[in-house]
């Protein structure tokens, strides 16, 4: 019977199923839905114990990649190994935590019962459940609401519970798909702390997020995907090598904006123009050119390139 991915096979040649194997390794992983290419030859390696940011615009293939790695989808071609085993391997799933983007839990159960059910399915030794559930509820800030029905929870609380479900049993790898989409700033701060704690104890974290500042703050390494393929990747230092310049200027025409393209990719937001790949030594030349084009320059702020600058620049180049 052909299944989506419930393999019990051991690792194929080339992948070593040991603690030295990477947390995730994919080779030309491709997924098509009919004529639509959701993921086009994804090749990447996520080392153990690192926080890996997986970035991309909507529809770039981020969630598809996570589902392929979890075995929820079958790849059209290519290969993927998770913790040294083929993606979807049943045994490996004991060591994985997952917070889906579309998080939803049994509304008729209490938070404790949801966690107990996952302890049972994980499966964890029954003697550890109580301690595990207490610890998890405290970690995600739901200690006071453990006995309440999930149906009475706000979206943010349900996402916290989902995070708790993903943390159960001290997994070796945790997939977090937009883990702070429903959280307030305090919640986001808490989640960043939880992610750092996971990495500190050696858990690899695969973080799908639109929130670039969040990724910038916690990730060791990132990959940027667009149209289903990785367009850039590496450590944060490797990725953010350039500098950016933000200018507040009025009086420039559309033609004037076009003339400035020689200064590299621009992100125009009203009077603010950010040159996402411009070194500080070219600032006088830029200002001079703007004035020549009839612009009135009010403010010039050179700064280090942020992940957002780099992200926009990469998408622009793509």
């Amino acid at each position, binding site marked *: *019977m052909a299944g*989506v991915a419930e393999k019990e096979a051991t690792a194929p040649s080339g992948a070593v199923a040991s603690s030295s194997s990477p947390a995730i390794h994919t080779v030309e992983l491709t997924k098509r839905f009919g004529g639509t290419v959701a993921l086009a030859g994804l090749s990447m390696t996520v080392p153990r114990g690192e926080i890996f940011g997986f970035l991309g615009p909507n529809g770039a293939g981020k969630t598809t990649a996570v589902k392929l790695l979890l075995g*929820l989808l079958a790849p059209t071609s290519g290969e993927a190994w998770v913790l040294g085993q083929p993606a979807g391997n049943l*045994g490996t*799933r004991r060591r994985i935590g997952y917070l*889906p983007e579309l998080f939803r839990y049994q509304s008729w*159960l209490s938070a404790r019962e949801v966690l107990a059910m996952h302890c049972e*399915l*994980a499966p964890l030794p029954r003697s550890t459940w109580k301690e595990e559930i207490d610890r998890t509820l405290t970690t995600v800030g739901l200690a006071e609401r453990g006995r309440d029905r999930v149906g009475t929870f706000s979206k943010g609380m349900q996402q916290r519970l989902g995070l708790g479900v993903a943390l159960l049993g001290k997994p070796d790898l945790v997939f977090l798909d937009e883990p702070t989409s429903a959280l307030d700033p305090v919640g986001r701060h808490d989640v960043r702390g939880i992610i750092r704690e996971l990495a500190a104890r050696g858990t690899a974290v695969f973080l799908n997020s639109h929130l670039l500042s969040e990724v910038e703050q916690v990730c060791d390494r990132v990959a940027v995907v667009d149209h289903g393929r990785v367009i850039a990747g590496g450590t944060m230092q490797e990725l953010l090598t350039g500098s950016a310049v933000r200018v507040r200027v009025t009086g420039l025409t559309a033609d004037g904006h076009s003339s400035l393209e020689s200064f590299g990719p621009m992100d125009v937001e009203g009077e603010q123009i950010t040159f996402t790949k411009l070194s500080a030594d070219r600032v006088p030349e830029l200002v001079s050119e703007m004035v020549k084009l009839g612009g009135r320059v009010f403010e010039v702020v050179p700064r280090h390139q942020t992940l957002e600058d780099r992200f926009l620049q990469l998408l622009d180049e793509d």
Partner: protein
Amino acid sequence: MPALPPVLVIARLTVQEASRRRLLLALVILTLIVVGISAWGFYKISTVTGPNGKPPSHEEVIIVSSQLLIFVTFVYSGVLALSAAVVAGPLISNEVESGLILSILARPVRRSEIVIGKWLGLAILVTIYAVGSAALEMTAVDWATTYVPPHPVELIIYVGLEGLALLSLGLLLSTRLSGITGGVIALVAWLMAWIGGIVGDIGTGLQNEAVQDVGIVSRLILPTDGLWRGAINAMEPDVILAQLRGAGAFARANPFAALDPPPVAFLLWVAVWFSLILFLSIWSFRTREI
């Protein structure tokens, strides 16, 4: 104590959901109301006076009660089939659409275990409900008229299997279709199977093989009507069966009559049918991309 196998965890979760969502409570209350009203109706049969000013004889009460019980059971089996289809229709599809299934599928749980667990949980509920409510109804009828169907155990088994068949079909459809679509298809299939059975009976009455085959094919595709005929046969008193046999082939063209119990070959097919539907459900869910 070791952890429960995933199949039993999923089955328990299914029962728990029905209980916490108050589905069980609603069914129990409705059943008590229906049994109460029907008990009053059956009681009236034995106490009403006819044109001669006398209450009906015991034989008359038994005959009327048996036929009325067949009709009540038909409605009841319809409610059971409807409930099974409506509950099974969204059993998997709703969880896929809402994302509820995602965190469970990320655990070391096979999809076959989810399908079997859900089937098992709902099958336990259908069985408990079928046995409990049928026993209650028969007790009420016995109290009101002293009539007990000749084969009460077979009656409960056939009606229960009818509910389980609809549950299985609903679950199969639920692996691919939305809850409402699956539920509606299962219900229409149940009605069509009943009508197919009647057409087949007419074929028997007319001794026309082609028309007769319609009933056979419909019972092979969905065996609910065949099981229903088994339930009717289990309720028919000997005196009625003798009258029907005396009436010839045309007596068979009656959706509320069954001269013979279902043949063994049909019962074997029912076992194969259940296995086949469960196998198809597992295959369909395993090959579904989520």
